């Protein structure tokens, strides 16, 4: 009878421990492929004129949402509730946030686009969510955002929502 080696069979748990961690990047890949979580928007870093000369002039309404915490003492809100996006036309808008505390606070905004499967048609040229922002004590700051609609957007893309959740980055786990 051929013997089964305990060492060989112990490889299974070792590999499965690794597989547990491999699930983390796999999850991201899965979300990117399926558009889940709405993180799949395009970040544009190239020459802006290439965007403008795409030839597609489709439009879509972009709605802005903001979410800091349930008590809302940060007065985190978009400058406009919504605006009309046109493919290739760069639009600039702001979010406002007020630091209610006596000390400066570093914040990180986390974006999400809905519906997730259309997230790739939102092009961000500039966003306060790319980096952490410092808000001085007791002051209101405007956080800039520059977006447009992708020239690749098919006709049925007529409506997108862009939401931000704000986190304090000193205590990354912590909310406000």
């Amino acid at each position, binding site marked *: 009878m051929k013997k089964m080696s305990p060492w060989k069979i112990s490889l299974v*748990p070792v590999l499965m421990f690794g*597989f*547990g961690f491999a699930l983390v990047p796999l999850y991201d890949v899965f979300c990117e492929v399926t558009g889940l979580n709405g993180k799949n928007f395009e970040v544009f870093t190239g020459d802006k004129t290439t965007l403008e000369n795409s030839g597609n002039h489709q439009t879509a309404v972009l709605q802005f949402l903001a979410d800091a915490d349930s008590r809302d003492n940060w007065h985190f809100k978009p400058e406009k509730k919504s605006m009309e996006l046109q493919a290739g036309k760069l639009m600039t808008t702001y979010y406002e946030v007020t630091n209610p505390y006596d000390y400066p606070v570093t914040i990180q905004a986390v974006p999400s686009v809905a519906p997730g499967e259309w997230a790739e048609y939102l092009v961000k040229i500039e966003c306060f969510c790319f980096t952490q922002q410092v808000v001085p004590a007791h002051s209101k700051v405007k956080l800039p955002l520059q977006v447009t609609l992708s020239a690749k957007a098919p006709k049925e893309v007529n409506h997108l929502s862009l939401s931000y959740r704000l*986190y304090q980055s000193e205590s990354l786990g912590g909310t406000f």
Partner: protein
Amino acid sequence: MSHAIDSADHHHGPDKGILRWVYTTNHKDIGTMYLILALGSLLIGGTMAFVIRAELFQPGLQLVDPNFFNQMTTMHGLIMVFGAIMPAFVGLANWLVPMMIGAPDMALPRINNWSFWLLPFAFGMLICTLFMDGGAPNFGWTFYAPLSTTYAPPSVTFFIFSVHIMGISSIMGAVNVIVTIFNMRAPGMTFMKMPLFVWTWLITAFLLIAVMPVLAGVVTMMLMDIHFGTSFFNAAGGGDPVMFQHVFWFFGHPEVYIMILPAFGIVSHIISTFSRKPLFGYTSMVWATASIAVLSFIVWAHHMFTVGLPLVGELFFMYSTMLIAVPTGVKVFNWVTTMFRGSISFETPMLFAIAFVVLFTIGGLSGLMLAIAPADFQYHDTYFVVAHFHYVLVPGALFSILAAVYYWLPKWCGRMYNETLGKWHFWMSFIGVNITFFPMHFVGLAGMPRRIPDYALQFADFNAIVSVGAFIFGLSQLIFVYNVWRTTIGGKGEKATDKVWDEPTGLEWDIPSPAPYHTFQEPPVVK
């Protein structure tokens, strides 16, 4: 001459005193210790259930504050799953697998000793968290992030360490079972001649080595998020709390089959013996067990229908979950058909086994209801879910363990348990368990959420009934404890024959009762 006898004796009997149990590498001793640990956990977890049911006897907050209530629900779940059901099955595997396959012991006796002795430390540490600043874990036994990371009490680190230790113990135990079954079967015992308990445990062991490391991985990620500044489950740092649920349930769903597959094996033996017929459909039982195990890896997200899965995902997990009803239905059919036209007698193990078939099927049916994604949106996180998983775990897994103890105890200790007390235990448990868990379906469908210390007034009557049932069920387990105590330590009860029952099948019935300390030093030949 006397020297020669002494040294011969040395190999035939256990050491004396406490060190016998510390140093033992004997599968029977280790099995006994696992079973005692499981019984202790059952009583501790049961006491926590008493606290929960006492608080829920009436609406309003009477006895404990909500945070302590949450600690009780969390610890009750953790201790029952990892401390009672799983060690009880490992204990049964230790006692029975070598005797059933005609092996002298487990393949890795020292590893076996270590796997057991890790557990008292793991559970000791887990229970100690109750007395720490901030209290015990209070985030539910599923410990979803960020409740278990950002918002967790400081004791969560001890919880993580304790899960690591019990995970190592389970993995070593499972490796031991696999190697024993593969390498140490008696000559002639081919795979398709193995008793079903051995088969179900072999498949369970494969599930254990596949998913316990994933649990270890997920708690390690929690540890890193809490202490080392990573962001696996933290949206602010680019992580995702929903991913926690995916990784957890990738472990969690196979885990629920880890807790039920050995039960299927036990019940198959008992029903066959007391129906005085060979088991109907042995081969289909083996294949059904294997298919359930394979399917268990692709259904995990049915625990998460409400997190915002895409429609395709909802459909996939709904249909794949319903598919599990097919092999499970095959099993139930085989048990019923084994009893059909059998010459049935109703000793305590058989009563528990029949109750298992009926009540586990009720749990399976409510599981099918929960598998329907649109319906689950209504049932999610209600008492209906609590009713469902208690039906599969209490009159399911726990009843099978009780049945197994009654069935094999005469073989272990050489004396019959008291049948009258056994019947009392069964009927009190059977009535108590249904009074406890059946009304939970009703309050759940009416919308009572789980894990709450207080509830709306319209649920008051059913909750009072549930609490009464819980106390009947809990206290009737003391009959079991007394019965086992008087049969083993108390030395009462008539002497068991070697066969114990009417023509049971299996190698374990060929050896004397009580089973000698060392059995099958010479392998038997299986025809």
